[in-house]
């Protein structure tokens, strides 16, 4: 964690077990400790089964840890909170609402008066560059635009934490790069704490101030890499390549272990 910044999210010995259909107990998360500073951008990466999605769900309050605690802003997380908004891979927009209606949802849930809510929603939509699509329905939008709406919906309620669960994984490469840059711009403007789950190592190196590499069986933190490069990052830069290489090396190690472990269990 970078020095001088306030701790925002604190994971203390977080553990999560599942019982599979065959009655075997699986450790999804094995004593995870992590400290995330206020306004920090942290990426969680790892192969499937490493528990990164479980971890972000626990942090966002959608799941309770088996043991250990998650604290955000000094308060223990026990349920979802409008101050910590999750952004999903499949956008999770309401198809019967227009773009504006979707962005208004969170404000309506909070009981913000209508005209004030409208102002906030319009500002959020402006921030993601969707001011021209207010009255469209989600099915009329491309995947990238849908994810912008979902980001605007989150920003409208001014959360202090954004949880993003593989938000760009379903998008084509160009849209993904574009939205990564947009997200960075918004992050630098609003400075929320961002926890960003991805399985794309390049994306993690491009975005994260720190990259948390996770390993499976049992799900755990393998290594935390600090990417000491200023934003926005030039992806063709030799320094970028160096971080990328380091992460890939570590990732291959994780992957090899995971593959071997899988072989033993067979």
């Amino acid at each position, binding site marked *: 964690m970078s020095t001088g910044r306030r701790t925002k999210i604190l994971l203390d010995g977080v553990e999560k077990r599942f019982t599979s259909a065959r009655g075997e107990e699986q450790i999804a998360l094995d004593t995870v400790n992590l400290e995330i500073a206020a306004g920090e951008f942290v990426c969680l990466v790892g192969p499937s089964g490493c528990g990164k999605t479980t971890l972000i769900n626990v942090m966002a309050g959608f799941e309770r840890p088996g043991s250990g605690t998650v604290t955000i802003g000094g308060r223990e997380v026990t349920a*979802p909170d*409008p101050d910590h908004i999750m952004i999903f891979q499949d956008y999770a927009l*309401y198809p019967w609402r227009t773009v504006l209606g979707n962005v208004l*949802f969170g404000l*309506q*849930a909070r009981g913000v008066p209508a005209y004030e809510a409208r102002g906030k929603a319009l500002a959020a939509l402006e921030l993601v560059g969707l001011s021209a699509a207010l009255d469209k329905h989600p099915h009329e939008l491309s995947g990238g635009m849908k994810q912008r709406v979902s980001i605007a919906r989150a920003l409208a309620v001014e959360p202090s934490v954004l949880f993003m669960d593989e938000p760009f994984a379903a998008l084509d490469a160009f849209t993904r790069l574009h939205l990564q840059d947009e997200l960075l711009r918004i992050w630098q403007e609003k400075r929320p704490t961002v926890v960003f789950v991805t399985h794309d190592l390049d994306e993690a190196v491009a975005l994260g101030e720190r990259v948390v590499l996770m390993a499976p069986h049992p799900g755990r933190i393998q290594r935390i890499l600090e990417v000491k490069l200023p934003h926005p990052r030039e992806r063709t830069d030799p320094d970028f390549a160096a971080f990328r290489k380091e992460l890939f090396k570590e990732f291959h190690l994780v992957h090899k272990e995971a593959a071997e472990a899988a072989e033993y269990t067979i």
Partner: protein
Amino acid sequence: MSRILKRSLLPAGALTIFVALWQFAAHYYPPEQFPAPSNVLAALRELSESGVLWANVGISLARFAVAYLLAVLLAIPLGLFLGRFIRCHRAIDPLIQVLRPISPIAWFPLAVLWFGIGNAPAVFIILLAAFYPVLLTTIAAVRAVPAVYLKVSANFGAGSRMTFLRVIVPAAFPGIMVGLHIAVGTAWIHLVAGEMLGAQSGLGFMIVDARNFLRTDQVMAGMLLVGLLGLAIYKGMKLVEKSIGRRWGVA
């Protein structure tokens, strides 16, 4: 234009051939046994001119509307409730599963015993016929609301009232619409049956009454009208469904 022509030409041609064959075949039977299309048309005109037809159509449509609306008003709230509260559904489900396969017609003796002869037994039978499709599709639609919709709602701190009215109900609506659609069909089918058994008016009664006087042409005229009205209601329903589907972003 030519596409419309092509699309209407084939069915129109088939219909013409069907009617021609019917006319030809009817030639070999006495009209009391197997009336020709021309007889049926004449009967339709006769019934229409005497006013019997329109009075009965009006009564049937009114019964249908009342029974269908009652069924919908009962089935949708109950379905929303049972879809939302899985435990209640689990408790009631066996009862529903036993009652559902009983044909609404089988309720007829009880309906007459309870409500007497008149509108009520027919309305009751139509209501039963419409009730189950709406109930079952509503339950299924509520249970099929994507979990992520509820996650978003919970995340933004929406209360249970807002989640129910502004997430679950609209999310389930296209599914409920399918049930409403199916129910129109089953309810219309049972309308005639219900009126044949207990009522003293309506299209079903008109058919039975014509049978009693061996007016087979009028029997067929009644059947034809039932079919045409059913088609019209079905088409109207389809239009409503389409426009709602467009608004919901599913069509």
